[in-house]
């Protein structure tokens, strides 16, 4: 039996909202914030793949590639920033990040 596309859409909506709430609630740890961003990108990928299957068009799967490469680049640069921040302040608590405050 074929899975309806709306099920995929509801699943990706729920994952997107969980990632968004993770960004809102997260006051403890920068790494979990990056993981929430990964969850949001993953929900976009689920949407792309399900619509690619629905319209029988391969372009959706190709855009998932670009999403993957951007997610990998973002994770690498974000984790590098976290590492140098930890070296400077000895903490990655979100409330400690106020160096740019004037």
């Amino acid at each position, binding site marked *: 039996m074929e*899975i*309806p*596309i709306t*099920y*995929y*859409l509801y*699943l990706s*909506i729920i994952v*997107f*909202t*969980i*990632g*968004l*709430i993770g960004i*809102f*609630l997260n*006051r*403890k*740890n920068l*790494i*979990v914030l990056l*993981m*929430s961003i*990964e*969850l949001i990108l*993953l929900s976009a*990928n*689920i949407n792309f*793949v*399900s619509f*690619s*299957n*629905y*319209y*029988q*068009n*391969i*372009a959706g*799967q*190709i855009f*998932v*590639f*670009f999403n*993957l*490469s*951007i*997610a*990998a*680049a*973002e*994770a*690498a*640069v974000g*984790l*590098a920033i*976290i*590492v140098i921040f930890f*070296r400077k302040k000895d903490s*990655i608590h979100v*409330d400690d990040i106020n160096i740019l405050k004037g």
Partner: protein
Amino acid sequence: MTIFLFFIVSILIITSSLLVITSKNPIHSVLFLILVFFNTSILFLFSNAEFLAMVVLIVYIGAVAVLFLFVIMMLDINIAKLRQTFLNYLPIGLLVGFIILLELIYIVSQSKLNFTQKISINNNNISNQMLDNTKTIGNILYTDYFLLFQISGIILLVAMIGAIFLTIRKREGAKKQNIYKQILKK
């Protein structure tokens, strides 16, 4: 049967992504993130994207999640201290997230998607070429989307150089090669 498997995989994705954002220990968060990625690759297999399922396994679990694990292992984070101000932002965050969830569910439930039949729009068709998924992706990716492919490679190169440049440390006493000095030496 497929729909039963779909529900199992979706429930696993939702519960483990909830555990990603709520667990105390960041290591547990990364492990549940790996579970989310694995189940998503199973979901991609359901929608006929075999190559992308394997790419998600290799890139996300093999590279990104392991990178997260390495960084968490290198940073010495105090777990008890991290939970101090967690509940301050809980009501407003839950409110905003709930409103966004309701709006998105409303949009999808009002949509005119006819999910009983599949539509084919143009000639980038999956089914009329008798090729497998990987070959189809290759045929489109290296012809129509070649420029975007090159640009994403450049973005990855810039990210690599940026990560190396950010984390390089200039310490006193560390031996380092100075190429200009070495070349200009008589």
